[in-house]
């Protein structure tokens, strides 16, 4: 698969995001599939950051490590990124004190990296613009380097700055100068840019896609499945779920509430679910720590509750704006006592959109908390994806709503000990038959008990829901060849995206690779897993943490089944970055049979 990777580097606040948005939309208009990721520090202004866009004629799912073209908006951008450019790649910049770049030019030359330059500020000022408009000069140059039609870019710039018509006129002039690469005005140290030519084939057709990130997809999925309340405290990388739901609220009527802390957010979502609507909350690992007592209350009172946990690496504050998969054990084990629960992990936009809907169904059908894991790279990476299928996931409330049934309930129906452990649930106020939602151990009607045999029976009633849940969850999915792969992987979450691209690359090279992907990570399904390890001899783990938490879970589960299993290799990553295409390819080449 041929892909092109471009990067816009500079300080936060220099207009990287708007350049990224313009570029991604322009590329989308040309018919490319794109993946856009933002690497940024936990600051609003200042501090170095970049926007990376991978694009291709064919669908692509992960990011690549090496870059074809870098647009450096400042000196730091030049220094930091010149060595990440692929041999023979291009560096676009407007840094005017070129005498200071001798060393950098030499470094670039050793790897045949070509520098493309116009005096950024001079061009911007010449057209009556300001310092911030340097990005338009460079954008024009980059577009020329890529070899695409200027009109497509102009349209997107016009759309982006439509609200500021005066500035837009200047922006467009600057953009055109950059694209033309000619600036013969007094004091200019370059008259005409010699653009290196990249030969990128433009797609013949423009596929029908939508461009969004995982958080946006979660918000849309929640709206679709009838969620009426979102209670939250902001925390990266979950924060933009709030943004999207709040922006949509005027049309959806949803109650979107930023609470005073994560405990409140979880309690309000819990209270709303207890009352019988659909509501949820979202946070990252640290916020989830604060929520866990509430999650146990949901477990004890058999109240459905969905919590999105968008992972970032590290304990304490860690790396707040980077990615990782270190909170699987947190999701599975957090909370005192024992209670049934489900942990799911979204991997891409479509998965976010659908899995949030399934999560509500599962939570309500089994009256348990569902922990919905994402990662920064899933939550915030924007991609072009086929538009979502709407309305085909049925809503299952697991709630007694039939008027006749509501009239014939017994108080003990609420927590009745049944074969599956699931009892009838009805909304407070919907029936004359009341019950107590009791966080203390309780009888079948919710009255408190401390009696030994009853306590034991009620404990077991709740826990045995895990069997019913296990039986209902879907098996994991195999990507790549069905059997006898030269190398196989097992993983969850965003690793699917790296594996999908890698499998395609490998197929072209005649290397047989496959990957077993889990969306439902707890309780862990085992049939397909057993088949997969029996059919493939070189099974490795791919996971974004230090200890291989999911790998351990798999090992234990197989051990329970009487299968002794050891991963041939554990491919682990925990530096805040997602699995890139190149390193995953490298791992395969080094470790395949």
């Amino acid at each position: 698969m041929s892909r092109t990777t471009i990067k816009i580097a500079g300080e936060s606040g220099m207009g990287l995001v708007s350049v990224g948005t313009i570029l991604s939309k322009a590329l989308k208009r040309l018919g490319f599939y794109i993946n856009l990721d933002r690497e940024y520090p936990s600051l609003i202004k200042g501090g170095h950051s970049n926007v990376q866009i991978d694009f291709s004629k064919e669908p692509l799912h992960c990011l690549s490590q090496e870059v074809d073209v870098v647009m450096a908006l400042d000196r730091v951008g030049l220094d930091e990124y010149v060595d990440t450019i692929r041999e023979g790649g291009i560096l676009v910049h407007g840094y005017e004190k070129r005498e200071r770049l001798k060393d950098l030019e030499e470094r670039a030359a050793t790897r045949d990296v070509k520098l493309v330059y116009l005096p950024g500020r001079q061009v911007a000022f010449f057209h009556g613009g300001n310092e911030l408009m340097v990005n338009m000069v460079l954008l024009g140059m980059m577009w020329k380097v890529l070899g695409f039609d200027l009109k497509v870019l102009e349209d997107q710039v016009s759309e982006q700055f439509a609200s500021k018509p005066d500035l837009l006129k200047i922006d467009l002039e600057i953009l055109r100068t950059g694209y033309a690469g000619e600036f013969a005005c007094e004091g200019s140290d370059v008259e005409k840019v010699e653009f290196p030519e990249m030969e990128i084939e433009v797609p013949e057709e423009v596929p029908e896609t939508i461009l969004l990130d995982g958080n946006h997809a979660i918000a849309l999925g929640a709206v679709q499945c009838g969620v009426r309340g979102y209670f939250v405290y902001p925390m990266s990388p979950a924060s933009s779920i709030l943004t999207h739901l709040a922006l949509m609220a005027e049309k959806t009527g949803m109650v979107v509430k930023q609470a005073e802390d994560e405990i409140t957010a979880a309690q309000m979502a819990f209270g709303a679910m207890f009352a019988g609507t659909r509501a949820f909350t979202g946070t990252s690992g640290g916020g989830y720590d604060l929520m866990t007592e509430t999650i146990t209350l949901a477990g004890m009172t058999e109240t459905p509750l969905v919590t999105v946990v968008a992972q970032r690496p590290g304990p304490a504050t860690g790396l707040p704006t980077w990615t990782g998969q270190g909170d699987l054990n947190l999701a599975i084990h957090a909370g005192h006592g024992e209670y049934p629960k489900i942990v799911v992990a979204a991997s891409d936009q479509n998965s976010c959109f659908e899995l949030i809907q399934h999560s509500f169904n599962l939570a309500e059908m089994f009256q348990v908390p569902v922990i919905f894991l994402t990662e920064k790279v899933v939550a915030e990476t924007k991609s072009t994806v086929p538009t979502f299928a709407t309305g085909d996931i049925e809503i299952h409330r697991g709630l007694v709503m039939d008027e006749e049934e509501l009239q014939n309930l017994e108080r003990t129906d609420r927590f009745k000990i049944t074969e599956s452990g699931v009892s009838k649930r009805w909304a407070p106020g919907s029936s004359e038959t009341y019950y107590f939602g009791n966080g203390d151990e309780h009888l079948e009607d919710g009255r408190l008990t401390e009696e030994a045999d009853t306590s034991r029976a009620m404990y077991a009633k709740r826990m045995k829901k895990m069997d019913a849940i296990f039986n209902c969850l879907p098996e994991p999915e195999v990507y790549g060849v069905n059997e006898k792969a030269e190398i196989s992987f097992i993983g969850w979450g965003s690793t699917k995206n790296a594996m999908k691209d890698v499998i395609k690359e490998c197929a072209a090279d005649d290397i047989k690779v496959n990957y077993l992907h889990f969306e439902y990570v707890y309780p862990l399904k085992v049939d397909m897993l057993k088949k997969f390890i029996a059919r493939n001899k070189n099974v490795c783990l791919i996971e974004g943490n230090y200890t291989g938490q999911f790998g351990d879970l798999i090992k234990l589960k197989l051990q329970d089944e009487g299968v002794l299993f050891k991963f041939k290799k554990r491919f682990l990553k925990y530096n805040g970055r997602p699995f890139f295409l190149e390193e995953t390819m490298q791992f395969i080449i080094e470790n395949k049979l």
Partner: protein
Amino acid sequence: MTCDPKNNCTEYLKGLAEKRAQYASFDNEEKITWCSGCGNMGIQNALKRAFSFEGLGVKDLLLCYDIGCNGNGSDKMGTYSLHGLHGRIISAAAGAAVANTNLKVIAIAGDGGTMSEGINHLVHAVRNDYPVLFVLHNNQNYGLTTGQASATTRKGYAMNGSPDGVTTEPMNPSEFALGLEPSFVARTFSGDMKHMTKIFREALNHKGFAFVEVMQVCPTYNKATPSKWFWDRLKFVEDIEGYNSADLEMAREAAHDMNDSLAMGILYRDPTMPSFMERLKSREGLETSILVDEVKHYDVSGFLEELQ
């Protein structure tokens, strides 16, 4: 309506019997586990009286209890209840109340849960004016964990865990709430059934967050302020000349004294303050009123088109 010998009393007696039956319907089979003389019994009964007078039945009520002695009442009243976590009940109740504004949601918590563990929830519940009646059981100690000091224990008194006496000044919950620009703050006393009932009825008719502090006796652990101590100091706002419960400054001044004269009654009320739901632009002009009835498929294709 009263019974006048000149009129037929049947209607009046019928109404009374209905209320009595409704009051009795809140009983259930659970045994009371509070100490003899505990203020909780009075509070619970006053709530039942208020519900009965207001014609509120099982389908209208959700009682949400915090952890503490008050929480042991969570399965003693015959209506829907939630027994949550320590310090957090205001937030859970707010979530439930927002989800179903047809329910009267009552949150009940002690001084430990409210003024220490979960004081942030109180602060923001007042600010947001969630549609909740909040009953603070202020018995000035942690009863259920056997008499430790709370934020409202009087300075100098020896408590379990503070044998040399409490070293901090007590907080004044009503005054604290009045500092948050509330819409309703009232104070009553667990020994005064009639007054409690009256205050609860008023609070049930308030559309926003109704903060009711019940000054409560704890015969087991609070020896500092027994029943007589309270009775000697109760000062009903009706008896304060020129008292105006629409005047926040006056309320703050009245609530301040906790030693000689305890202001009782509706200290402050602003019935015009828009409640939480009324402030939400997203809820303007919607046909349905409660979130519980709105769970269904929503068409997101319009939003998806914007992303093309």
